[in-house]
Every structure is written in structure tokens, then in C-alpha cells.
């Protein structure tokens, strides 16, 4: 389990980084926290010719409020306690890997990796956040619901870098809830659901049981049942499609109920 041969650069500026991506594009992988990428390198599942290490880019280490959102720079770690200011993230982050992997893993890395079973992409989707990208020639803000395309696949072009993620700040009267079911502490979820509720407004998203974190239009009277009707989980080594579908019902109900309670409180 050793990585295949590769080249490595650690640019010192964003401009230099975007230049490298423009030149080498598809042959590269961007290395942030590496908590998903390096296992893939070690197993030789990922075989980039060039690793572009962005950990030295001070331009990407910002964390600031802006127009009712948190702007989280691409090198902010999952263990950054400022993330806990958002109640949804405070609830979801303890489920993201483990104490030690959160120390190194980044928020943006988890977003860009787009594992459908990862917690942070689901949170970004349910909150209606967005992903800010740059390339040598362009700049985009991509709504989260458009960013995630399929398993490990995003709208990111090969020459683009996620420079920051934008998280709408918690709003008055809204309640938020994150529920997941994993077999062991810290495992990727078998199923997860997130909800945001205020009065009759309701946003619900599910993960793990779909190929990307997915916002669902649910019947506010029967949220779990209507969510389950909209997904067709494929099953895995641990769980059958029927079980996963059942979990959607259970977890969506739990998340919606909790979000509503918190909204009312």
C-alpha cells in the first residue's frame, strides 16, 4: 500500500496554483487535508501525475462573515471551532471521521471529494450554500445543489480550484437538525438526513442513500414517508436497499421533528 510515483508542487500563491492547474488540469489532484485522497493514493486507486498541495496558500485560510454567510477558506480544517457556531455543523461535525482526521481534513476537501456518504456536503446542500471556485481565467459561485453531480463527481472543471465554501448563517426562527445512522462511531453513514425548518417552511436533504446529497420536496405531514418514496438506494455490503429506504423514513422524520422543535424553541 504505497503510492505510485507522482510529482508534487506546493505553490505559494493562488495565482501560481491556478497556473499549474491550467497547465496540467486533468493530470493533477489538489491535496488539502488528504484524509480521503491519501488513502486512495496508498491503495493506488487515485494515480495523479501531479499533486498540487494547497496547504501553503495563506489566501485560502480565511474565515469571515459576509452578507449573512460564513465564508470558509479552502484550507480550514474540520476541527476549526469557529465552524461550531452554526448549529447544524455543530451537530454534524462530530460524525465527520474522528478527532484526529478532523484535525487535518478540510471542509472544502470534503466538499470537493463529493463522497455521497459525507456529512459536510449534505449540510451545504440543505443550507443552500455554495462553492466558490477559481481558475486562471474564470471565477464561479456554484450553488451546492448544482455542484454535486454524482458519486465523487462535481461540477468542478479540471483547471478549477475550490477556493472557499459559503455557508448561510443560521437564521432567527429557523431550527436545524442533522441525523445519521452509522454502524460504528465515525463511520460513513449508512443513511443521513438534514432538515431546516421555520413555521411552514421546510428544507430536507438526504445523503448516503443517493449518488449525491439531495434536496427533496417532502410532504410536510409525512416527511419521512414521502422522502423514502423518492429514493431508490442500491444497497451495500452492510445493508439491503429495503433497510436503507426504511432508514430514510426514520431519519427524515427524526430530523424534521427535531428541526421543528428547535425552530419553535
Amino acid at each position: 500500500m504505497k503510492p505510485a510515483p507522482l510529482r508534487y508542487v506546493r505553490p505559494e500563491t493562488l495565482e501560481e496554483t491556478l497556473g499549474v492547474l491550467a497547465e496540467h488540469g486533468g493530470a493533477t489532484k489538489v491535496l488539502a487535508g488528504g484524509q480521503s485522497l491519501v488513502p486512495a493514493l496508498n491503495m493506488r486507486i487515485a494515480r495523479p501525475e501531479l499533486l498540487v498541495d494547497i496547504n501553503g496558500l495563506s489566501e485560502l485560510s480565511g474565515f469571515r462573515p459576509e452578507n449573512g454567510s460564513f465564508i470558509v477558506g479552502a484550507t480550514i480544517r474540520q476541527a476549526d471551532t469557529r465552524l461550531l457556531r452554526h448549529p447544524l455543523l455543530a451537530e454534524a461535525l462530530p460524525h465527520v471521521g474522528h478527532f484526529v482526521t478532523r484535525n487535518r481534513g478540510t471542509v472544502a476537501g470534503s466538499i470537493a471529494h463529493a463522497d455521497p456518504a459525507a456529512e459536510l456536503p449534505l449540510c451545504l446542500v440543505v443550507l443552500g450554500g455554495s462553492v466558490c471556485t477559481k481558475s486562471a481565467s474564470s471565477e464561479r459561485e456554484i450553488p451546492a445543489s448544482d455542484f454535486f453531480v454524482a458519486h465523487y463527481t462535481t461540477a468542478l472543471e479540471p483547471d478549477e480550484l475550490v477556493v472557499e465554501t459559503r455557508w448561510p448563517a443560521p437564521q432567527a426562527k429557523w431550527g436545524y437538525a442533522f441525523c445519521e445512522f452509522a454502524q460504528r462511531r465515525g463511520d460513513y453513514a449508512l443513511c443521513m438526513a438534514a432538515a431546516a425548518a421555520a413555521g411552514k417552511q421546510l428544507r430536507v436533504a438526504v445523503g448516503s442513500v443517493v449518488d449525491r446529497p439531495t434536496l427533496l420536496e417532502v410532504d410536510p405531514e409525512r416527511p419521512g414517508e414521502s422522502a423514502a418514496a423518492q429514493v431508490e438506494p442500491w444497497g451495500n455490503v452492510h445493508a439491503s436497499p429495503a433497510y436503507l429506504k426504511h432508514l430514510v423514513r426514520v431519519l427524515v422524520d427524526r430530523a424534521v421533528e427535531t428541526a421543528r422543535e428547535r425552530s419553535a424553541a
Partner: protein
Amino acid sequence: MIPIEVRVNGRRYAETVEPRLLLSDFLRSRLALTGTHVGCEHGVCGACTVRLDGVAVRSCLLLAVQVDGAEVITVEGLARDGKLTRLQQAFHQHHALQCGFCTPGILIAAEDLLSREARPSREDIVDMLSGQLCRCTGYTSIVNAIAEVAEA
């Protein structure tokens, strides 16, 4: 090959490494610091945990080139002046290790937790420990050892 300079356990090393060389292999093979153990090389078991600029990280998920200019503490760097730390002593007293293969990573992760949380609860300790696999002890004695230091 890329030149790097790194401080490990207070000592400066200037080495040249292939970019793909994992930090865990660099520490073990190049620096002969074999206290850092390799158990899975995909970030699950935690045996290879070291502190990088004070923060506990998986050394199997870092390339040696990435620690250029950084400070690394491994298990060999815990005891000072030949004296075991309070945490190491607590592990001894509580029989918190059997084969001892997972122990270096657990000590490092626990030191990080204790350095950040003044008084971690038992649940905090269990949560931290859930990222470190041990197959010998059933964990209870490890939690007891860390809790004793946390409460002191």
C-alpha cells in the same frame, strides 16, 4: 527528489525525499524512529498518529514532503529527561496496554486532546479514542488512564 527540513522531537533533520514517500515511512525508515507504528495505511487504525505543529495527525496520510519546515512530535518525544509523562505512567498503572502496538498513536492523540480540553469528559475521551483501534484491551483501561490524567 525534494529536499526538506523538519524538526522531529526537537532535533533538526535535513533530508531529501521522493515526493511519494509517506511521513510514516520517512519517520520509521529514514529517521529510525520506529515507535510510530503502521497498522492500516488508510487512516482508520490510528497507530501511526503523530503531532504535526502540535496537532495530532495520521502520518500514513501525509507525505514527508508536506512536513518541510514543520515540527513533528512522535512517541519517542513524549518522555522528557528520561521520565515518563503522567499519561504514560497512567497507562502503566491502569494496564492500558497489552501488545502496545496501538499505544504510541493513542498516547499522541490523547496528549492532543488533553492539551486542548482542560477537563475532557469520559464521553469526550471515548469519542477521541473511537478513531484509534485497539484489539487487546477492550478500551476500558485506556479510557480510565486518560480520565485519571484529565481529572488530575
